[in-house]
């Protein structure tokens, strides 16, 4: 796998030509700048013709698998189709060529869609207010934890230092709570995979700031006692945080605000179809109940006398969590998606996402153990724990690659042994689902009869199975340049 640095041509002459030639000599530059401030050693960046560079990255792109290549059933990640309309909208020069410090009168178009998206997201959540500032799901979680902290600080309840988390929670939840300075207490799940209400009640005391829940949870199971859970949390004077990673399960049909959420984060890159970009940029807007509204990050987008403006006056705010106003061009895509779908489309999203997941679950449970065999929402979790011939979930995942299919999320949630977490999303048609089932059935058969096919997989990917232990043990994180003479 060669990198750009392996391509370096023998010519040392800078190609140039992208911008006009500078006019000043080195001496003229040096006359204006202390020599100690000027770069001494030349950058080791190859100077290549544009065509060589474009070919290199085109080649790299072909080594990737994206949603446009096929089904991407990565549980909890909602890898739905990313509409092309939204991509072109986000590239309109009128939206991209706008500086964040420009006067509000010169950015009315952008402020309008940000304000409208804010309003629509609040309605989707069934909550009082929304900030668009957080730029990722985990960033939304962190912002939510900051809001919890500010809320209790403003009430003088500084002894509320604990956050309760179900053991099925995604790892970012405890990490976000910890970065915001909270202690984490884990709550066990019961036999049906949902929160153990008695265990929760036992922990709820005056040291608890709140609970972080994923609804439906990471097993794809809806917390049927959700109203009892949030009622118990509120009775104890604590707050309820809902991780919105799984909103695709009920968007257009139910709202976290109606379930008792005080803070809820959206993942625009999941539920609202904005692309994942190989790991960002995403967007993690946060919705809050009325009592937390005054603590939202600044600035807020407001409308005064028919004009949109940025309002910095919020003395009880947590401050800012981003340089400016969040991932505006991601928000543009999400807003376009909402405008196109409307209410009817949103309902179709959850309907078909849940139908697809239950269909896959019903068909796949014949081939792989399904530890929680019940109605699922947008995703479900199989176990590779009973694979024959000492095979593991990882082997199944790698074999899927040979059949041209992206593997599901594996080894998560932690409460299922050898977990395979499968989320088809609503944009896969039945033919794609059926093909996925056929391939999984074939792999189950191979596991029994031809285990080496799994062990040696993948054989059709650009590389064979990669040694992740080696990468961890002796890290090589940058191109090893030959020692300078």
């Amino acid at each position, binding site marked *: 796998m060669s990198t750009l640095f392996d391509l370096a041509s023998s010519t040392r002459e800078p190609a140039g030509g992208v911008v006009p030639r500078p006019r000043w000599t080195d001496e003229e530059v040096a006359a204006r700048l202390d020599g100690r401030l000027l770069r001494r050693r030349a950058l080791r960046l190859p100077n290549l013709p544009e065509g060589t560079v474009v070919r290199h990255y085109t080649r790299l792109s072909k080594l990737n698998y994206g949603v446009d290549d096929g089904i991407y059933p990565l549980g909890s990640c909602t890898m739905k189709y990313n509409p092309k309309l939204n991509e072109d909208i986000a590239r309109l020069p009128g939206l991209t060529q706008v500086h964040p*410090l420009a006067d509000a009168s010169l950015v009315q178009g952008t402020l309008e869609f940000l304000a409208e998206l804010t309003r629509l997201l609040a309605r989707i959540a069934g909550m009082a207010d929304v900030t668009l500032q957080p730029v990722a799901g985990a960033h939304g979680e962190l912002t939510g934890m900051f809001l919890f902290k500010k809320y209790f600080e403003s009430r003088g309840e500084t002894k509320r230092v604990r956050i309760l988390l179900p053991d099925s929670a995604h790892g970012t939840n405890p990490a976000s709570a*910890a970065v915001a300075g909270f202690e984490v207490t884990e709550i066990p799940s019961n036999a049906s995979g949902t929160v153990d209400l008695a265990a929760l009640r036992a922990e709820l005391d005056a040291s608890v700031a709140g609970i972080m829940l994923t609804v439906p949870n990471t097993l794809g199971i809806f917390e049927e006692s959700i109203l009892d859970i949030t009622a118990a949390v509120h009775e104890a004077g604590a707050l309820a945080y809902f991780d919105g990673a799984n909103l695709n399960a009920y968007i257009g049909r139910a709202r976290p605000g109606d379930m008792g959420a005080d803070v809820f984060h959206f993942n625009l890159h999941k539920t609202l179809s904005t692309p994942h970009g190989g790991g960002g940029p995403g967007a993690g807007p946060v919705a809050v109940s009325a009592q937390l509204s005054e603590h939202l990050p600044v600035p807020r987008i407001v409308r005064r006398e028919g004009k949109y403006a940025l309002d910095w006056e919020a003395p009880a705010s947590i401050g800012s969590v981003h340089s400016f106003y969040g991932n505006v061009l991601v928000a543009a895509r999400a807003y376009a998606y909402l405008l196109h779908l409307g209410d009817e489309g949103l309902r179709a999203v959850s309907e078909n996402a849940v139908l697809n997941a239950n269909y896959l679950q019903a068909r796949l449970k014949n081939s792989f153990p399904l530890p929680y065999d019940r109605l699922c929402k947008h995703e479900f979790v199989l176990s590779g724990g009973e694979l024959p011939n000492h095979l593991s979930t990882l082997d199944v995942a790698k074999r899927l690659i040979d059949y041209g299919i992206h*593997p599901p999320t594996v080894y998560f949630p932690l409460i299922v042994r050898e977990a395979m977490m499968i989320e088809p999303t609503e944009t896969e048609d039945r033919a794609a689902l059926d093909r996925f089932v056929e391939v999984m059935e074939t792999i189950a058969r191979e596991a029994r009869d031809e285990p080496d096919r799994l062990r040696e997989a993948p054989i059709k990917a650009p590389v064979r199975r990669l040694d992740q232990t080696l990468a961890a043990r002796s890290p090589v994180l940058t191109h090893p340049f030959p020692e300078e003479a």
Partner: protein
Amino acid sequence: MRYIQRDSMEQRKMLETVGVASLDALFSDIPREVLSRFEPIGLPGRSELEVFEHFSRLAEANGAATGVSLLGGGVYDHYVPRAVAHVLGRSEFYTAYTPYQPEISQGTLTAMFEFQTMVCELTGMEIANASMYDGATALAEAVLMANRIRGYGRVAVSQALGAPLRRVLDTYCWAAGIEVLDVPFGESGQTRTESLPADVSAFVIQSPNALGVLEPLNGVKDRLGQAFLVVSTYPLALGLLEPPGSFGADVVVGEGQSLGLPMGFGGPLLGLFATRKEYLRQIPGRVAGRTLDASGAVGYTMAAQTREQHIRRERATSNICTNSALCALAATVYLAILGSGGLRQVAQLNFERAHDLAETLARRGCTFPFDGPFFNEFVVRPKDGAGAAHARLTAAGFVVEASQALTAYGVNDALRLAITERRTDEELRRVADLLGGTS
């Protein structure tokens, strides 16, 4: 709905397989009270044509997009070679997820590895992560890391740090219980580093700083004792300037927007994070590393994951997972297209044009509140007051910050101007005429 291909006949067949009677029955596990409280958002749904034209109108309502930008402060109006958008438009890159399955993510992972190499080259550091959300969160995470390692619970911060960075830093430090001590700047616009507070986990400085002034980093590290030297940088300027790593910085962070990203009203942006090898186990964010596959061929994978939250949960070094991968790819392609020679040219052009304008303005009687060296951004005091000058510039189609923006730094009656390679001679002549009068 165009994005879902499904008719009611097929839905019925699938429901049969599931063993439920209706679509509604799929949601029978949601409490009835919750379902009955549901209210729609009141949107009818529009065709693609209507949505596109609606957005075209919104885009036209942004006067800033057709104005001539003189704005800086972390985000700059740089030219992006056309090839960058073409590479980024490949959906194999933008529709992929985080590379959890490295065998079918070699494109993303190889580019991450190249990006890390380039960030190290630019900053003069040993290791870099595969990106953070933006320059502000990168800085906040750097301070959290320094405090995790040093543990003083206090950090010293230059008062010439840009407001967007400072606001986010304040929020993170408040939550983490870290005290922030101010370090003032002097008449040159440079931070007074002669006497720095003791017993701090880090000293944070930005160069060029919020006033556009380049900070003399020489010798600062020696005066810091145990504290980390954390420098926030402007990566494009490093095509011309000596990198912070050469002055002993422990962590170099920065806003990477200047490397091939549009201004986009401030997002998405690109956080850069680079440090010394010895802190590898302490850094936040994803890292790509080189490894071998089962046949002995070189490939790339995510490395040092034992720091991350899916393994370490509440003991993780950070909660960040999704970052700015596609923006990092943009920066990588940008630097690949320009090469070392092209980047040096762009950086020098910025320097030249900004100095050209400043020297013209000085000749025409404008004054400068700070006399420290600068790169492409400076604070100027127009002859007849900032308010009037701002009004003239705006009327002539320039996009420029109001003078009140500088009161955060204790500066009155002055304008901050950023001049990039995109500003033409003719534009600079007009700026000079509007600020200094035609001499």
